[in-house]
C-alpha cells in the first residue's frame, strides 16, 4: 500500500467518526442544546491529541527530573567533604545549586584557607528531549566528528586564593585524550609522557619535575583503581585558559585554576571515587602553596607564555593590517571607477551625491510636524482668469504638505476653474505661470511649489 492511500484511509476513518455529527442538520443541532451537541460530537481525535500532548509533557518532566536527581545525588554525597573544608557550601544557606537549564547546573563553595572558591559545573544529557537524545546518540556513533554522543559530566574548578607559579600540569585519561587537547588550549601546550603508576593515564605537563612532585601516594592509589578510569577525564593545574586566547589580557588575567573533569556516574562506588578525587584536588591546592619549581624550569615555562603572547600579538597586528589594506583597496576601486566617467557624468555623480547628502540631512529635520496657519487670501493675489470680476475675499483652501519631497510641495485645492497665485504668510510661494494651466476649466487644484 502506498503512503498516499494509507494517508487518505486515515482521513476517511476520521471523517467516519465524525459523520453522525456532520450529517445532523443545523436546526436539529440547535435544538439539541450545548450538552446534546457535546454528546453527539465524536471526541476521539481530540482525546488522542490531548493524550499525545500529555505524554510529551510527562516525558519532558521525567527527563528533567532524572537530570536534577543525578545532580542532587552527587552533591549530597559531596556535602560532608565540602562541609568539612568550606565555610559556605552551596549558593546560599538553603540552596545547594542553581539550575541554569535542564541540562546544566552549578554549585559553589567558599571560605577555606588557600582557596578563593570552588565551583562545580554539571553538564547533562538532553533527557528531557527524547527525540534529540536518541538522534544525537545515533548520529554520534556514525559521525563522531560532527556530534558528540550525549553524556553527563562534572567539572570541579578551584580558584586558589594566592598567586601560584605559572605552569601547566595534568593527569589525563588516555581515552579521549586527543579530544581533550583539541578542546583545551592549555593542554595543547604540554608534553605528553607516560605515567609510571598506570597504563590508563598520561601526564601532560610542562616539566618532568611537575610529574614527580605533584603526585602523591594517595592520588596514585585512587588512580590505580580500575573503576577510576571510567570516571576521571583529567585533573589539571593551569595558569592559562581553556579557550585559545584572542586578547592580550587573556594572558595577563589571573587564570590560575585547578580543574577536575569527570564523567558523571551515580553508583555508590563511583560516588566514593568522585569524593576522593575532589578531596585530592582540595589537598593539591594546599600543596601548591609550598611548591616551587627550579629556577631554570620556571624560566623556560615563562618563556612559553611570552612566546605565545608574541604569537598572538602578531596575529592581531596581521588582522589589523589586512583590514587597513582592504579599506585602501576599496577607496582605490572607487577612484578607479570614477576616473572612467566622462566629465559630464562625473558632474552628475557629484551632484547626485550632494543631493543625497542634503536629503539625508533634511530627512532628519522633517520629523517635526509642519503646521500651516489659516490665512486669508487677499483679493489681488487671486487672479481669476475668466471671472475677473468675481470677488474672493475668502477661498476655501485645503492644504496637503508633503515634507518628505524635495522641495516641499504644497498642494492647494481651490474651487474649480481658478488658478491661484498664493502667498502664505511666512513662506514664499512660487506658483506656476498663471496662464499655463488657467485655461483648463477642469482643473480643480493647483500645485504650488514652496521653497
Amino acid at each position, binding site marked *: 500500500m502506498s503512503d498516499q492511500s494509507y494517508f487518505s484511509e486515515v482521513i476517511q476513518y476520521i471523517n467516519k467518526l465524525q459523520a453522525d455529527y456532520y450529517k445532523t442538520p443545523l436546526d436539529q443541532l440547535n435544538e439539541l442544546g450545548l450538552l446534546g451537541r457535546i454528546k453527539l460530537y465524536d471526541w476521539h481525535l481530540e482525546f488522542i491529541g490531548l493524550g499525545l500532548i500529555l505524554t510529551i509533557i510527562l516525558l519532558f518532566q521525567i527527563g528533567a527530573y532524572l537530570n536534577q536527581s543525578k545532580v542532587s545525588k552527587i552533591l549530597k554525597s559531596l556535602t560532608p567533604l565540602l562541609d568539612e573544608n568550606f565555610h559556605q557550601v552551596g549558593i546560599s544557606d538553603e540552596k545547594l545549586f542553581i539550575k541554569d537549564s535542564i541540562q546544566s547546573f552549578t554549585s559553589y563553595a567558599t571560605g577555606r584557607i588557600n582557596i578563593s572558591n570552588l565551583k562545580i559545573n554539571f553538564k547533562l544529557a538532553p533527557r528531557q528531549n527524547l527525540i534529540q537524545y536518541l538522534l544525537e546518540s545515533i548520529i554520534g556513533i556514525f559521525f563522531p566528528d560532527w556530534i558528540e554522543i550525549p553524556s553527563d559530566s562534572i567539572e570541579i574548578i578551584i580558584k586558589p586564593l594566592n598567586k601560584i607559579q605559572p605552569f601547566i600540569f595534568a593527569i589525563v585519561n588516555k581515552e579521549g585524550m*586527543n579530544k581533550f587537547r583539541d578542546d583545551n588550549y592549555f593542554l595543547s601546550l604540554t608534553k*605528553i609522557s607516560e605515567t609510571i603508576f598506570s597504563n*590508563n593515564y*598520561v601526564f601532560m605537563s610542562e616539566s618532568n619535575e611537575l610529574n614527580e612532585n605533584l603526585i602523591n601516594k594517595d592520588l596514585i592509589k585512587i588512580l590505580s583503581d580500575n573503576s577510576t578510569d571510567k570516571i576521571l577525564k583529567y585533573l589539571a593545574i593551569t595558569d592559562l585558559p*581553556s*579557550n*585559545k586566547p584572542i586578547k592580550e589580557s587573556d594572558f595577563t588575567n589571573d587564570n590560575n585554576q585547578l580543574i577536575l573533569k569527570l564523567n558523571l556516574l551515580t553508583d555508590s562506588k563511583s560516588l566514593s571515587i568522585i569524593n576522593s578525587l575532589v578531596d585530592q584536588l582540595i589537598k593539591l591546592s594546599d600543596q601548591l602553596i609550598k611548591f616551587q619549581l627550579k629556577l631554570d624550569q620556571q624560566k623556560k615555562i615563562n618563556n612559553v607564555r611570552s612566546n605565545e603572547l608574541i604569537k598572538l600579538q602578531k596575529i592581531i597586528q596581521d588582522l589589523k593590517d589586512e583590514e587597513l589594506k582592504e579599506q585602501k583597496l576599496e577607496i582605490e576601486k572607487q577612484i578607479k571607477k570614477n576616473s572612467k566617467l566622462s566629465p559630464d557624468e562625473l558632474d552628475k555623480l557629484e551632484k547626485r551625491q550632494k543631493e543625497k547628502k542634503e536629503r539625508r540631512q533634511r530627512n532628519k529635520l522633517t520629523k517635526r510636524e509642519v503646521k500651516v496657519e489659516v490665512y486669508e487670501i487677499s483679493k489681488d493675489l487671486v487672479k481669476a482668469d475668466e471671472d475677473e470680476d468675481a470677488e474672493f475675499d475668502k477661498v476655501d483652501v485645503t492644504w496637503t504638505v508633503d515634507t518628505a519631497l524635495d522641495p516641499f510641495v504644497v498642494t492647494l485645492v481651490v474651487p474649480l476653474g481658478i488658478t491661484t497665485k498664493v502667498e502664505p504668510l511666512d513662506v514664499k510661494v512660487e506658483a506656476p505661470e498663471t496662464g499655463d494651466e488657467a485655461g483648463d476649466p477642469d482643473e480643480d487644484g493647483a500645485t504650488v511649489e514652496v521653497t
Partner: protein
Amino acid sequence: MNPAISNLVIMLVMMQVSKKLDFENPTTVFYVRVAFVSATIITLSVYLYTRSVILKKNDLTTLKFVSPPNSLAGETEGKLTVTTVKEYDLEQVQSAIKGVFTTLAMMGFMHLYMKYTNPLVMQSISPVKSAFESNIVQIHLFGKPASGDLKRPFKAASLFGGFGGNNDVKTDKSSIESAEKAGNGGVKQD
C-alpha cells in the same frame, strides 16, 4: 601481488563475466543478489570480529603522530594526534564498517531504484577482498606483527603518489616535539 593490480585484474575479469550474464533473467538476478548480500555479511562480520578482538586486547600503548596539514582548510602546520593503539584501531575498523554501509546504500539505490544489476557483481568480490587485505584485519585476525607496512599509523594508499611527498604522516621525534607544544587547542568555533 600488489592489491591495486589484483583489483584491476579482478575488475577486468568480472566485467567479462557480467557481460555473459543475462540480467533479464530473474534467476540470474536472484543469484547475483544472494552473492552480494552474502559478501556484505561476510565483510561486515570480519570487521565486527576484528573490532571485538581489539576491544578484548585493550592495548593502551600511546601512539603519537603528526598528520599532514589540510591545505584545503588553510592549515600550514601539521597537527599532533595522540591516541592509543586501541583507539586508533577502533577508528580504522569504524571507518571500514561505515564504508560497508555506504556501499550498501549506494548499491541499494543503483539496483533497486535505477535497476542496475551490473555493479552488484563487482561489489560481491572487492569488499571481501579489501576487508581481508586491510591492515587492521591482517594484524588482529591473522596475527601479523604490527611492523613494516603494518606499522601504525598506517600509510594511506595515495592515488596520486602524494603531492610533493608532503602528505605523509610524520612520526619522527623532532616534528612530534614541535607539534606537541604548538598550542592550537581550544579554538572557539562560532
